[in-house]
C-alpha cells in the first residue's frame, strides 16, 4: 500500500488528480473511472460531515487513488484526517517555518511528532512499527504559501524537514498583495511563480491546480517542463458550470419556429424571474 502520488513523483512521473468540492463519493468514483491518481477534498472551505468524508476516502482506496485533503493546520483535525486514511495534506496559509514544523509534528508519531496513537482499520493488519514507518515515508505534507508572512518566510518554510510539497492559491495571494479584485494582476502571477519556483529550486515538489481546457493543459505542460509533478484539475463545479453555461448559451441561440426568435435569456436570468 503505497502513496500513489508520492511513488509517481519520486519516479519523476507526473501525478494527476481531481479537485473534489462536492461532498459525495460519486465524484470520487468519476475521478477513479477517469484514471486519475489522486483526489483532493476540501473540508476546509466546504461543509462536509466526517462520515461522508470517510466514505469518500474509502472510495479513493477502492480505486487505488491517493486521498488528499485540504484541512486546518490543527493537530486534532490532522489526526482525524489521518485516522480516516488520508495520505496527503494541503495546509492553508502557512506563515512561518514554525507553522510548517507544527504540521509535520501533527502527522508524525512521537518522537519527534505529536500524533496520538491510532490508525485506520485498513492499516491494522501491519505491525505498529511498520505503520509508523509508512507514515514517515508515504504521507505527503503540503504547505500552501498564500499570505504576506508566508511569502516573507518562504525560504525558511521550504527548508523544513518533512515538508514534501509547496503550493499557492491565487485568490488569497491576490488579497494578500492588495489585488483582491484583480487576481490576474501580473504581480499576483509573479508571486505565484516565485513560490513554486523557490520550492522546486529547494528540491521540494509543487502542487498546482489547472483548468481541463486546452489553455489550462498548456499551462500544466509548462509547469511539468519546469519540474512540477503534482497536477490537479480544477474543481468539478467549475467544469460543470462552464460546460452547462456554454451549452445553455448555445441552445438558446437556436430559433424556435412558431414562437419567433428566442428571447435572449442570459445567465443572469434568475434575477429577471425575481422581478416578476
Amino acid at each position: 500500500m503505497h502513496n500513489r502520488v508520492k511513488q509517481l513523483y519520486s519516479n519523476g512521473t507526473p501525478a494527476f488528480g481531481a479537485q473534489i468540492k462536492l461532498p459525495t463519493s460519486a465524484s470520487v468514483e468519476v475521478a477513479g473511472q477517469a484514471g486519475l491518481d489522486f483526489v483532493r477534498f476540501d473540508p476546509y472551505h466546504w461543509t462536509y460531515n466526517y462520515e461522508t468524508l470517510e466514505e469518500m476516502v474509502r472510495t479513493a482506496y477502492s480505486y487505488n487513488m491517493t486521498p488528499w485533503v485540504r484541512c486546518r493546520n490543527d493537530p486534532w483535525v490532522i489526526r482525524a484526517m489521518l485516522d480516516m486514511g488520508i495520505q496527503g495534506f494541503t495546509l492553508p496559509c502557512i506563515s512561518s517555518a514554525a507553522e510548517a514544523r507544527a504540521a509535520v509534528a501533527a502527522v508524525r508519531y512521537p518522537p519527534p511528532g505529536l500524533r496520538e496513537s491510532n490508525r485506520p482499520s485498513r492499516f491494522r493488519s501491519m505491525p505498529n512499527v511498520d505503520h509508523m514507518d509508512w507514515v514517515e515515508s508515504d504521507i505527503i505534507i503540503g504547505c500552501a504559501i498564500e499570505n504576506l508572512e508566508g511569502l516573507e518566510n518562504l525560504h525558511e518554510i521550504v527548508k523544513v524537514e518533512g515538508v514534501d510539497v509547496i503550493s499557492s492559491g491565487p485568490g488569497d495571494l491576490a488579497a494578500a498583495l492588495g489585488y483582491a479584485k484583480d487576481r490576474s494582476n501580473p504581480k499576483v502571477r509573479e508571486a505565484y511563480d516565485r513560490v513554486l519556483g523557490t520550492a522546486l529550486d529547494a528540491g521540494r515538489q509543487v502542487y498546482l491546480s489547472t483548468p481541463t481546457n486546452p489553455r489550462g493543459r498548456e499551462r500544466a505542460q509548462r509547469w511539468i517542463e519546469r519540474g512540477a509533478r503534482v497536477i490537479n484539475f480544477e474543481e468539478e463545479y467549475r467544469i460543470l458550470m462552464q460546460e452547462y453555461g456554454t451549452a445553455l448559451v448555445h441552445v438558446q441561440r437556436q430559433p424556435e419556429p412558431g414562437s419567433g426568435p428566442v428571447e435572449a435569456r442570459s445567465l443572469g436570468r434568475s434575477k429577471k424571474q425575481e422581478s416578476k
Partner: protein
Amino acid sequence: MNPISLTNRVKQLYHDGKSAFGVHVKFPSPSNVDIAGVTGLDTVAIDPYHWHTKRETLENMIRCAYSYGMTPWVRCRNDPWEIMTVLDMGAQALAIPKCSSAAEAAAAVAGMYYPPKGRRESNRPLRFQGMTSADYHDWTQTQLLLCICIENREGIENLGEIVKVDGVDVIATERGPLSVALGVSGNRQHLLVLETEKRILGTALEAGKQVAFTCPTTKDGLEEGSLWTERGARILLFEAEQRVLMRNYREALADLRCAKFD
C-alpha cells in the same frame, strides 16, 4: 426581495411557447442543484430511481431547487406511495420510467392527483402549508407535471394509446433502455433506436403532448437538442454531471499523460 415563486417554471415556459432547459442530476448532493441554479437552468431532473439517494438528501435537493425557482423534477417508480411521498417533498414534476400501457400511465396520473381525478392521500409539503387546502388543490391541478417515459417494447407498441391519456403532460424516452428493448443492447446510435426515438417523440408532439429531450453537452449533442427544439420540443435536458466530468478529466488526462518532460 420577492418571495420565491411557486409556479412550475418548466410548465410556464412551454405554455408560453418558450423552451425550458434543465440538467440531469445523479449525484445525491444539493451542491449539484446549486450548480444548476447558478448556471441559470430552469429545472433539475433528480434520479433516486437508479441512484441511491437518501430521502432526506432528496428533500434537501428539492428545497435547493426552490431556492433558485427551478422546477424540481424527480424520476420515480410508478407506485402510488412513492409518488405521494415525492410530491410530499415538493417535487413539481415526475418522470415515470418504463411505462408499458395506457393503464400504467393512468395509474401514474391517479397517483399524482387528489380525488376525484386521482387517489393521492391528503398531505402537502411544508412550503405549501401557508395557503389554504383548496388553493393547494388548485395548485396541483395546474402546476404538477407528469412525464411518461416510453422505453420498453410494450410501451412502444402501446404508444398511440399512452399519448392519449388525460393527465400525461410530457413524453420522453432514453436511448439506453430503447436499445435493450429493441434487441441492439448498448448501441445507442443504432438506426433502429434513433428511428424509434423519433417516432415516440413525434407521436407525442402530434398528440399535443410536450416532449423532453436529453442531449449531451458536446457540439453534436447540442445540435441534436436544437433539432428537437425546431421540431417543437420545449424541454431540453443536459446530460448528467458524471458524463461531463468524465469527458473533461479523460480529455485532459489523455493530453497530459503523453506530455513530454525532462
